[in-house]
């Protein structure tokens, strides 16, 4: 039997074994990209090289980036201005559609996304939304992690719109609602329209929600609560103002952490249970900290991404 030259390990059986009859029954599954994807990517790369932009930072390289705009948008405009020679590039770029759209926000950033059907999604900090190619007549689906507010258009064909989160699917016709999934718990608030929430693990029967409803689901404790709240307060963050009704310091700390990425350290743990009367408006983080320091009689200092509350 012919031995494979394995260098220093002359008696290594591995390669021989692999040639054994039994191993002929094993194969590797192959995955190939679509050929047009490859040629599209190549054309883009060559265009970048031609434009002398090969040294620019690759768009997706930085994980902490804000929203990712489809690459062809900026380039199509530049190419149109540059003249005749680049027209083929313009045609190429306007035809280019990424297979999957992925938007993610860094901490403290809020971004608005317009979906192919003109529905809008406002993505809160530290959240992500993904969707693939949508075809007319088929259902519209997106995947969400974190928090987003949705304003879903009713389409001509009344295609269902579904938001997938880790534990729930939310089916929508035409409506405005907010989904907040943080720390394992999910809250859904409906502003207008009607939505149906189904549970992927089947632990609960599907729930139909009406405007003003707040649904809170905790998979760990397996609790589901359904109550009525002023929805406008809950979604005020989309206008840059957050209203947390009568929040305890712990709730504020959690909100700061979830959306802004700040870790809050309370030098005096008894502050945690204090409640602030009335809504807190988050127009500006520094203003909030100012108000908090006054109301709680604490000094708040910022170190990198940590906030330390020290009693005065």
């Amino acid at each position, binding site marked *: 039997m012919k031995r494979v030259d394995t*260098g220093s390990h002359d008696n290594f059986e*591995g390669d021989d074994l692999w040639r054994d009859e039994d191993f002929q029954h094993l194969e590797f*599954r192959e995955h190939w990209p679509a050929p047009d994807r490859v040629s599209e990517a190549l054309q883009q790369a060559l265009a970048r090289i031609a434009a002398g932009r090969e040294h620019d930072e690759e768009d*997706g390289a930085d994980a*902490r980036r804000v929203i990712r705009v489809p690459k062809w948008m900026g380039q199509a405009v530049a190419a149109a201005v540059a003249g005749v020679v680049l027209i083929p590039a313009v045609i190429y770029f306007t035809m280019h559609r990424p*297979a999957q759209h992925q938007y993610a926000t860094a901490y403290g950033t809020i971004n608005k996304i317009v979906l192919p059907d003109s529905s809008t999604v406002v993505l809160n900090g530290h959240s992500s939304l993904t969707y693939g190619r949508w075809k007319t007549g088929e259902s519209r689906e997106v995947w969400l992690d974190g928090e987003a507010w949705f304003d879903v258009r009713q389409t001509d064909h009344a295609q269902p719109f579904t938001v997938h989160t880790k534990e729930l699917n939310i089916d929508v016709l035409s409506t405005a609602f907010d989904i907040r999934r943080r720390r394992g718990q999910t809250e859904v608030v409906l502003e207008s329209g009607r939505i149906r929430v189904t549970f992927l693990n089947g632990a609960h029967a599907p729930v139909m929600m009406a405007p003003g409803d707040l649904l809170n689901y905790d998979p760990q404790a397996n609790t589901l609560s359904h109550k009525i709240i002023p929805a406008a307060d809950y979604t005020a963050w989309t206008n840059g103002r957050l209203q947390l009704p009568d929040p305890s310091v712990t709730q504020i700390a959690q909100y700061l952490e979830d959306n802004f990425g700040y870790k809050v350290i309370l030098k005096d743990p008894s502050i945690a249970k204090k409640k602030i009367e009335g809504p807190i408006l988050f127009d500006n983080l520094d203003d909030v900290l100012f108000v908090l320091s006054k109301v709680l009689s604490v000094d708040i200092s910022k170190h990198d991404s940590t906030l330390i509350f020290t009693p005065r």
Partner: protein
Amino acid sequence: MTKLDWEHIKTGDQEAYSEAYVFYYRKLYNYGRKFTDNEALLEDVIQEVLMDLWRRRERLSSIEFPHTYILTAFRYTLLRRLKQHASMLGPASIPETAYEFGAEYLLIKKETEERLKQRLEAALQQLTARQREAIFLRFYENLSYDEVAGILGISTKATYKIVARALQQLKQGMGLPMATLLLLLRNINC
């Protein structure tokens, strides 16, 4: 196997680069796809690595084996990005070890007889992600043990051990039918 023209790529020949581009795009996609099904992220990393190849073209002469270099750089970049992506979605969302060489990519051929299939199936379950990846790189990508070691970031000796162990486990799993094995075990205890 396509012979790529590194000499011409080094001097800035875009045609030679294009050939390498298409060749590696497909190869890296096939490889990276075993770690994740997030196509957008995967393609992003591939494009980044290939653009980087162009940027470094003049320094190619100092890279002894461009082929292994590309695979290593790709693997490193992909895993780093997958971890960044996971941590961005929240510390608890995806565990650190989630990004490893997937299980479903080493398969049993359809024509395999049922009993052997079951034994193979059971044996395959025993393999670690490391073992699967080492086998993929050695027997699918046909890289030498030195090269596989380089890509995985371990010693060549360790690579031999990983592959040998994996194949022996598989062979053992396939070798003895369960009935015979049980009989033997029972006899030992008597």
